[in-house]
């Protein structure tokens, strides 16, 4: 019981779906590195990053990268959220919500970073990408929760709350960013 059994439970989930777990982990880690670069200024104006040259200077390639990040984020948020909501302990629920909100902030930061070159096309591109990315991540998170085959309605309600945290945080951040663009 306790932490060790929780960790072994998470490892069991990973071993049950190894391909998804490996793919998700690689994408998640690579996107963490990208956002770390962004947050530390390495991805700021004037600096050369993956979005300015090479493969990701092409718009469809940036879309592909973002879809990969959105998919891994949605799947990882559901995987960790599902694990933390298995027992409905209050502390774990709070941790699940914090992780989910962080995931949503992370996704919006990714949109801002990956599509920095497309800002001059107006807000439309970023908004389209945001709708598509958030929808895709939420769809995958819901699919992951569905595959857990949970029949306890209290747990399903808690997981629905996580989906709400994710979509509401991402949507509010995107809307605030849009309003900041419109206002002088």
């Amino acid at each position, binding site marked *: 019981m306790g932490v060790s059994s929780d960790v072994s439970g998470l490892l069991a989930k990973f071993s049950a779906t190894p391909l998804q777990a490996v793919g998700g982990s690689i994408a998640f880690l690579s996107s963490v590195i990208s956002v770390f670069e962004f947050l530390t200024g390495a991805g700021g104006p004037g600096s050369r990053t993956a979005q300015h040259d090479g493969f990701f200077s092409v718009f469809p390639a940036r879309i592909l990268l973002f879809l990969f990040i959105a998919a891994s984020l949605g799947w990882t948020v559901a995987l960790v959220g599902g694990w933390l909501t298995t027992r409905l302990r209050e502390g774990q629920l709070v941790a699940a919500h914090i992780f989910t909100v962080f995931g949503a902030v992370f996704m919006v930061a990714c949109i801002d970073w990956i599509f920095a070159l497309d800002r001059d096309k*107006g*807000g*439309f591109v970023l*908004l*389209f990408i*945001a*709708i598509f990315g*958030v*929808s*895709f991540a*939420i*769809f995958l998170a*819901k699919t992951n*929760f*569905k595959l*857990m*085959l*949970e*029949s*306890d*309605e*209290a747990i*399903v*309600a808690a*997981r*629905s*709350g996580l*989906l*709400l945290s*994710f*979509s*509401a945080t*991402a*949507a*509010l951040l*995107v*809307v605030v960013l*849009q309003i900041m663009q*419109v206002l002088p």
Partner: protein
Amino acid sequence: MTANREAALARLSLSAAAIDLLVITLIVKAIHRLIPEIPVLYGEFLFWSAVPAAWIVHLFVVEILAGGWSIGRLCLGLQVADAVTGEPLGKLQRIGRFASILSTFGLRSLSARKLASHHTSSSVSYTSNLSGVLQVRGLGRQDRQSSKSATPKALVIKVLSGPHANQTVKLATGRTFSRDGYFNVGRDRTWADLVLDADDQVSGNHCRIRVQSGRIWVADWGSNGGGSTNGTYIGARRLKPVDFTQIDPGTHMRVGNTKFVLHNVR
């Protein structure tokens, strides 16, 4: 209808609304792009009036033209349907919902615990495929009280027809379930709790039943969870493999040539 199920659907509904908020923002952006003179000519008030206009346009498209489907609801597998037939809503129902949401400015939908009345009216059901099927149907006060008092003490599974007709197994609210809280039905003696080995249309691992918090769930199974050969039926509806569907006590089910039913016992 339990509070948890209603809370789950309310949260999913709000989550869908958050995604739809992005679509509304896109419509606002489109209005400003199409009529760029608005802020210059009419000032800030009309500039912001594009927001409610976009919301009404979106609501009209979703509730009336698209029959309750929006991008958010599609992603979350949320479906609005006629409570009696399970079919998509009729024109009058759709117009009624539109008017109801519009008249309250959508504010009644902003609860994470309770669904708004336009989601649970007597003629509309709200369904999600998260965890099998979560369904909320309109219930009056009397129905709510009778639903509370109808918590089963135990369940009995009774075979109605087929080679094993009249066989009965008593289940004590899930505690007697032999494997992981599931009650298994099939021909395989090493797997099934209700063994139907005389019915050659039944698969070895045919279907699974789960009872939790007084609710009954059933899913078609098969070897490796890929679905049984001949399917599990509720009425004429064939269940999807490994997709738990909630059923009420007294619902007749069919596997192969065998029909059975689950009853409450007090």
